[in-house]
């Protein structure tokens, strides 16, 4: 046995991957919710997460894989200081959670990366430029009113062709690739549709639901909210749209801005409490996944912990609730071939894959096509495509190529971020196709709108 000990000493360190409780002082993390050592210990280093990780697929480097990022967390707990290089690898994570789906050991990477990001935001000094960009994003995106103010100038630019002219100059690219990315993602804006606060069910009432109108969804894709309300109404739901609602905090949670996220969450809980709704329906995957985890987000707040839990239990993606209720409104045929893109925060984070497919396949005449490498993120990932435009663009182009290869006429997905990202990637690929949210397709079928309405002009 002593020989073996000597052998082991020559090997360097042995033993389980981590056996620490609390972070070592001087290391990357402090004691306020550091990445959980026990959760890190769940990782057996098998590598099954690697091929599903977008950054590993792009770069093939250990430190840009879930396994490597968890290893960096372990290093941080063991006393390795929070260096720029460490942070750059955590920042490069899209938070798509494909690794959580792939992991046979059940490692809760989602929790670990959120804990890590909150520490990074508190403890890491970002560059002035990075801070300014993040400041701009977070003073804009989570505020529906500010986003709506932006609509006017954007529409004017699009109507006059100024946006295309600006893009041609490459001026923004030179000033900041991140700002250029933000500009190129802005969708073509239609007329805003404002929803009433109460919409009565058509026919027999089967449920009373609240509708989250969201920030980006509401400002840039008001048609999706309108379609959601019409479909819910047609399927027998009373729809309540509280005016007081604001941002759900998803973007903040996913970027480690914990206190800001908690404020948003508390306000949203307040808005829907007392509205008498059985469910809170969400049509944006990123928002839904965050709202389902409010119990964790507000666990430390005694006055909200219980209420957050009750709220989270009522949250449903719109495809979940429609699938659960089953169709009552008759469907008109839509002669269309559709490629359905799984939004990461719907498929990986919420496990919602079958429901939207079932709803779409039930439409007469509609043909559903699967996209190769479907588990791979499109590169949108919240604000990722704004702060990390290069990898996001590569992933977007890869996704666009796989989508185009299906030969489908319309791309359908259930998240505004994906929709913007894929739209701009498809535009670059020069294979024009229609873009729609799942509920817009259902709405067209229920209303008997011709299939051509979903196709590009």
């Amino acid at each position, binding site marked *: 046995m002593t020989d073996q000990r000597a052998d082991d000493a020559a090997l360097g360190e042995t033993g389980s991957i981590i056996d620490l409780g609390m972070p070592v002082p001087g290391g990357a993390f402090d004691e306020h919710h550091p990445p959980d050592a026990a959760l890190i210990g769940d990782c057996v280093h098998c590598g099954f997460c690697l*091929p599903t990780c977008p950054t590993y697929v792009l770069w*093939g480097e250990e430190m840009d894989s879930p396994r490597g990022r968890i290893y960096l967390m372990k290093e941080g707990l063991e006393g390795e200081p929070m260096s720029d290089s460490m942070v750059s690898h955590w920042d490069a994570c899209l938070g798509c959670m494909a690794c959580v789906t792939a992991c046979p*050991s059940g490692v809760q990477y989602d929790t670990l990366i959120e804990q890590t990001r909150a520490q990074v935001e508190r403890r890491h000094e970002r560059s002035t430029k990075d801070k300014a960009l993040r400041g701009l994003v977070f003073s804009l995106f989570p505020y529906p009113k500010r986003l709506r103010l932006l609509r006017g100038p954007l529409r004017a630019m699009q109507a006059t062709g100024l946006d295309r002219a600006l893009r041609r100059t490459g001026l923004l690219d030179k000033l900041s690739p991140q700002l250029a990315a933000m500009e190129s993602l802005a969708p073509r804006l239609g007329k805003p549709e404002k929803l009433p606060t109460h919409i009565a069910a058509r026919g027999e009432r089967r449920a009373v639901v609240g509708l989250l109108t969201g920030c980006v969804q509401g400002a840039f894709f008001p048609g999706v909210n309108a379609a959601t309300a019409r479909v819910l109404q047609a399927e027998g739901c009373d729809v309540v749209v509280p005016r007081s609602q604001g941002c759900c905090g998803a973007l903040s949670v996913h970027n480690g801005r914990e206190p800001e996220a908690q404020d948003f969450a508390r306000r949203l809980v307040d808005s829907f409490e007392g509205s008498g709704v059985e469910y809170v329906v969400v049509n944006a995957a990123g928002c839904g996944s965050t709202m389902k985890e409010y119990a964790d987000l507000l666990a430390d707040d005694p006055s909200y912990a219980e209420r957050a839990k009750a709220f989270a239990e009522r949250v449903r993606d719109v495809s979940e609730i429609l699938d659960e209720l089953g169709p009552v409104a008759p469907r008109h045929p839509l002669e269309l071939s559709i490629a359905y893109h799984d939004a990461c925060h719907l498929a990986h984070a919420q496990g919602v894959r079958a429901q939207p497919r079932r709803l779409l396949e039930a439409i007469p005449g509609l043909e559903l096509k699967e996209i190769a490498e479907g588990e791979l993120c499109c590169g949108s990932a919240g604000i990722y495509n704004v702060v990390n435009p290069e990898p996001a663009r590569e992933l977007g182009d890869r996704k666009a190529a796989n989508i185009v290869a299906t030969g489908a006429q319309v791309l359908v997905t259930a998240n505004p971020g994906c929709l913007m990202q894929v739209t701009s990637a498809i535009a670059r690929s020069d294979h024009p196709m229609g873009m729609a949210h799942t509920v817009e397709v259902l709405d067209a079928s229920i209303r008997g709108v011709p299939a051509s309405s979903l196709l590009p002009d």
Partner: protein
Amino acid sequence: MDEAVAAVAAVEAVTRRARELLPADAVVTDRARLRTYECDGLAHYRVTPALVVLPRDAAQLAGVVRACAEHQVPYVARGAGTGLSGGALPHAEGVLVVTSQMRAITDMRPEDQRAVVEPGVINLDVTRAATPHGYYYAPDPSSQQICSIGGNVAENSGGAHCLKYGFTTNHVVGADFVTPQGETVALGGIAPDSPGYDLLGAVVGSEGTLGIVTSATVRLVRLPEEVRTVLVGFESTDHAGAATSAIIAAGIVPAAIEMMDALAIEAAEAAVHCNYPEGAGAVLVIELDGAAVEVEQEYAEVERLCHENGSFEQRLATDPVDRALIWKGRKSAFAAVGRISPDYIVQDGVIPRTALPEVLKAIADLSGDSGVRVANVFHAGDGNLHPLVLFDDSVDGAGEAAEKVSGAILDLCIEHGGSITGEHGVGMDKSKYMPRMYNDDDLDTMQLVRCAFDPDNISNPGKVFPTPRLCGEVPGRKKGAPPLQEAGLAEVF
């Protein structure tokens, strides 16, 4: 101390050369980044490498190896880092050469049943690329979705379907190979066999100790006309083992016969909800493939033999989704054990199939006596056992107790005329067991082969062999250089 200083200087020299040869982001020296490469799939051995390089092509890789040779710096090759014997454990004063960015399938020639791939290509991606042409790549380690061909070649990897189709060595016909001197040579070819010494055969399974493969020409196998996968529940591993022997004795060679015991089933169930028969003490996953008429007939026979040997449930996968779920349970079993135990050792040993009931009984006794839980997953068809020895490292002495049971299992394999590894390789983990299988003469002979390729002992040193002898030290009783060399008639290359 001087030696340590010299080693640092040598690594610095290689680093400078690597920076000239490789893109900036392909040369890793930052400590936090280096540490993410400390271990492969066997995470309880960890060494921080002095330098990590990620070459984009064979020329870059060969250039780094040449620099290593020039400065006498040890190097270790690593693919996806999924190995389970610590074969890619880095060297503290050496370079880790990572092939994960050399991942192009450079040629796909279904008409010749051949594909040419770089070492970083993921095993399953070869099959994905070949499937549209009606072919696939047969060796399928459980980690096929992530492990790379380079690692497969180094370890001579097997997998569930090796029972019928053979191991990696049966599917690699040629390779470009970088010697420890940094020279690139072609081994084998496109033809099924090359005249002369089978140097390719020596390289496949050499665990990176002879050099690094930078391109492999692999054989593609025609997709079978019919595949039937059946999941069979038994009361005990004895019954399942008897059924396995009966099937082989009947002259049937299934594509795979896999066994899992109750504990392994519990883990897989927790991880992937594979819905295996409830209350089973063991399950067999049997896959038959080939011409439809043949499969039909064999299936009837298998069904009967399982029934005669006490199966209580047989479930035939009727579509690809069912089949995938059955396999998912089996293929995720190793990692899934993480759900039922904080730490575990994946053991890998081989026994004659007929000794299965006896050895399993002995393993159960070992487990009972020591209180260390052992889950069993194995390729029953070819007697390749994968006992999973469970422990909790936060409990004092638990690691040692598990290590002891794990070692005793290997002793059992050797006693029954088997081997200390079926497919995971010797690596770092099992070098200490080599003397139990081989005598000194055997080991010395293997050293001579190694010295012929790597006289300076810089290619993955310290792996496979327990006490690595320097090539200057001539093994055995003879002293001095070999007579032919002494006479100036030959030289060690």
